[in-house]
């Protein structure tokens, strides 16, 4: 017996534990989007757009985040701000496929049948595919750049209905083995994009923050809008290890035998400092920065991010 589509709770597909069990990225992305859409009262497309359209009377069920409080102050009535669906927006998804993105926390090993765990790259590609799907469905153009120490694949933005399949195929087949050169990559992408675009950088950003910031500055200089999604595994955020451990660094970072409990606090502090630099610099450059924990459901990450972004765009 087939369950009617309207009876399926797509929101469960926002949980990485569930997504990990779904091998095909395209299906995974659609489920994310569906889950995402069903989790919102209104179309997300408006939220995704950036151009203001008109006001309308607030009705029950509207998201109160869109109430225009300035109008309320003047008229003592509730009005909702509506935005134009931007049809000529170019969304460029820049996905990090370096070796460090292959890290999957020990806790995620059982999420997938093959035991690889839920890698940061899996999370990144899921987000990228989802965003591409959303963009293409609201008639925007979507492109893809996959990089490690150089841009391995560059797909120009297009609103062709087949674009999404191209992007998904690319994300699925890309090899991931090299070191990261995020700053240089951003410079390179800045040079290749001639139209003003919305660039979504999806990476763990394990690189020198100064180089990353330089790259972002370059993109901003070219008047690109930028969203930075830093993908981190839960282990990387919490460093929950107990016993003596030999850490073999990815991307030729060497080895280290440590008593994790003794280093935990300092490690977290180092990571926090790194993220804080990026967060501060992004803030200065009016770039959205979101840290994504791969163990958290996507409806925690994306709606929050979109709401923040929408608020900033008012």
């Amino acid at each position, binding site marked *: 017996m087939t369950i009617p589509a309207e009876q399926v709770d797509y929101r469960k597909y926002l949980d990485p534990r569930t997504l990990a069990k779904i091998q095909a990225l395209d299906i995974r992305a659609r489920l994310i989007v569906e889950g995402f859409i069903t989790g919102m009262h209104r179309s997300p497309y408006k939220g995704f757009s950036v151009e203001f359209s008109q006001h309308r009377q607030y009705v029950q069920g509207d998201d109160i985040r869109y109430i225009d409080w300035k109008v309320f102050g003047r008229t003592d009535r509730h009005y909702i701000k509506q935005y134009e669906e931007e049809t000529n927006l170019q969304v460029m998804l820049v996905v990090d496929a370096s070796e460090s993105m292959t890290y999957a926390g020990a806790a995620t090993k059982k999420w997938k049948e093959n035991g690889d765990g839920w890698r940061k790259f899996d999370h990144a590609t899921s987000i990228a595919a989802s965003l591409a799907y959303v963009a293409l469905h609201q008639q925007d153009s979507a492109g893809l750049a996959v990089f490690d120490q150089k841009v391995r694949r560059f797909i120009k933005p297009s609103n062709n209905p087949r674009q999404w399949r191209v992007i998904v195929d690319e994300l699925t087949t890309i090899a991931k083995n090299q070191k990261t050169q995020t700053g240089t990559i951003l410079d390179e992408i800045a040079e290749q994009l001639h139209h003003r675009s919305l660039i979504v950088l999806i990476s763990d950003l*394990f690189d020198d923050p100064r180089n990353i910031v330089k790259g972002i500055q370059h993109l901003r200089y070219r008047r690109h809008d930028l969203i930075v999604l830093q993908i981190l595994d839960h282990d990387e955020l919490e460093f929950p290890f107990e016993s003596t451990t030999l850490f073999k660094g*990815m991307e030729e*970072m060497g080895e*280290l035998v440590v008593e994790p409990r003794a280093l935990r606090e300092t490690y977290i502090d180092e990571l926090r400092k790194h993220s804080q630099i990026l967060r501060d610099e992004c803030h200065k450059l009016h770039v959205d920065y979101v840290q994504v924990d791969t163990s958290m459901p996507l409806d925690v990450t994306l709606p929050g991010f979109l709401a923040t972004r929408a608020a900033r765009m008012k």
Partner: protein
Amino acid sequence: MLDHLNILAFGFLAPWLFAAGAAATSIPIIIHLLNKRKFRIIVWAAMEFLLAAQRRNARRLRFRRWLLLAVRCLALLVLAAAVGQMVLDNTAIGSLFGGQRAIIVILDDSYSMAYQRPGTASAFERSRKLLKDWLGKLSSSDKVMLIRASRGGVQAGNRATSDHAGLESQIKAMEVSDAGTDLAAALDQAAETLKEMERTVPTRDVMLLTDFSNSSIQDPPKGIEQTQRARNLEGERLKKAVETVKAHATQFRVFDLGTDDQMNIAVTDLRTERPVVIAGQPSIFNVTVMNAKQDSEIDVPLTIFLDGVAVQTEKLPKLEVGSPRTVPVKVIVPTPGRHLIEARIPDEMDFLPIDNVRHLMIDARREIPILLVEGDPGDGGRTSWGSTSYVRTALPSAAQLGVFSRKTITDLELPTVPLEPFSVVILTDSPAPRSAALRENLRKYVDKGGVLMIFPGANTNVREMNDLLGDAGIQLLPATLGQPMDMGTGVGFDIAGSNHPVIDKLKRHFEGGEDPGFKSVQTMRYLKLGVPLDGSAEVILNYANGGRGGETKNDAAVVMRRVEKGKVVLFASSADTSWNTWGGKPSFLPFMVELVYHTISADGGGLTLSVGDQINLPGEVENPGAWTGPRGIRFSVNSALDQDGRPRLTSMGLPAAGVYGPEGRAVVAVNPDAEEVDIRHVSAAQMAGAMGIQSDEIVTPLAPGSAGGSAWLVAADSKNTGGSELARNLLLAAFALFLVETLLARIFSVYR
């Protein structure tokens, strides 16, 4: 400078426990090393942050790791030291910072310290080893004085010395004495020395090493003869001695070297029932055996040896714990002269053989010579056989199956007869000797141990007797002679009122039997005797004349006085039947025999000695020269003239129990102190109570034989923290370190 190296001297009461604990300190190191080898592997992406964290923390982490490792090792080491009863020799520290120090070591070398179970060392051997080790750890500036605590062990002129090597040699050469413990005497000498050092030596410590035997703190039970040492331990003497020591010492410690299993059974006395032994006649020897074990003993075999040959063995019935049992044993000594009597119980009975045998050297004689002096020779039996006739009958000769040899003379012959060969001189109805030479002769005779008996009679001039022999004369009379008392039909004796040993013995003989003849004795006349009230005379027998003729008290019938080594017995009535009927009554004979035995001096005087006594014998006993004794002791016996110009044999104090004499001959027998027999171990609380000290001033061992080295001794040595106190502190320190370790580990996030 070398002395200062000693400041780190320390030891352990339980070194094996410490060794085990010290080995355990390697555990954290091993764990640390194993942890370095054993780890999980993670391929890690955020390596740069980890490396940065490592760089930031490298020194701190290394410090933390080493600190934790050190704290863990130290905690285990301190715990091991606590379990191993570590003791620090702070004496050297004391000498470094506190000036000179003197230690008086009182070592109990009484024979109970020789108690030795098979396979173990005696307390004395352990003491020697401890002291030897301890001496080796002292600062060379420390002065040490060694006092022996056996009776006679205290030596005049003993001084504290820094010659530790000399002391070590002295201790090495020391042997356990056969004498008993005399802690009080040793403490007295310690106190004297402490007083002398009080102004010059700032630190004065006293250490007493003893086996905590019961006899060292308690007077011996009734039936055990005390030697000449004035013990009176229970009479606070020991407490006073300790109190004096503590008043002048900076520290006083008592070390318990004894063991709880100490027990003993011993022959504590061997003596003749009579003062003399007559050859060929059965003699009673009283043997006393004391059971100082934990339980009563049954059928203890007691063997009597005569000149080394067993002559009699009998099994003693049940011997209760702590109560001496005296057993009479009948032995016939065949020939006159010196003989060695020994009473033995088997050495297997206990682990202290020294007191399982007791010696008695006797000088058996053929007879007891008696000189009878007649003031009234009688008329050949027509009216009288003479004033001595009844006495002569009462003291029968060997031919009459008696033991006496009698010589009868008149009072006129007395000045011409030498008195010394006679044990007893009996004057009957004799006038007072008017010759000063005779009186002097009589006095000398009594002074040297002779017995003078005086019976009054018709020839007695009361005033003359009092003047010449009484206090105004040669002071021999036990009482003043008074006027004759005429009692008409006569008066009897107050037997019931007398408790003199002579009368007691007769009472026992006739108890429940026939009337020994006292009741029927009638005395018609007697001289009223004025018995001095100063206790110098003892009344043997009274007349039962109280209430008659205005007398409220009974008059004395027989009075005795000790004069120097001899005795004088004064009768109130005549020896014959002119004034009384006693001579013809059955009681007179046993009374006179018992009176003679009671009053004459014992033979063999000076032949049986206690350990430490010196030989002091008449010159004719043996020749001076080289003598030998037990344990190969060789010494010389000298001849010296006494006050009367007669030769006497003298020697040093005899140090060991056994038989001494010229090569091949036994002349003198020496016994160990019987009062030492109760070697049962007393508790620290009992010892503290007896000495009047605190229980923490008593240092007890962990276990017998566990005192490896001098650590145990050093534990309570001056300025040291006591072993147990230090161990307690170390234990606390170990727990504190473990607490610190846990705290540090938490702070360092080693534990979550």
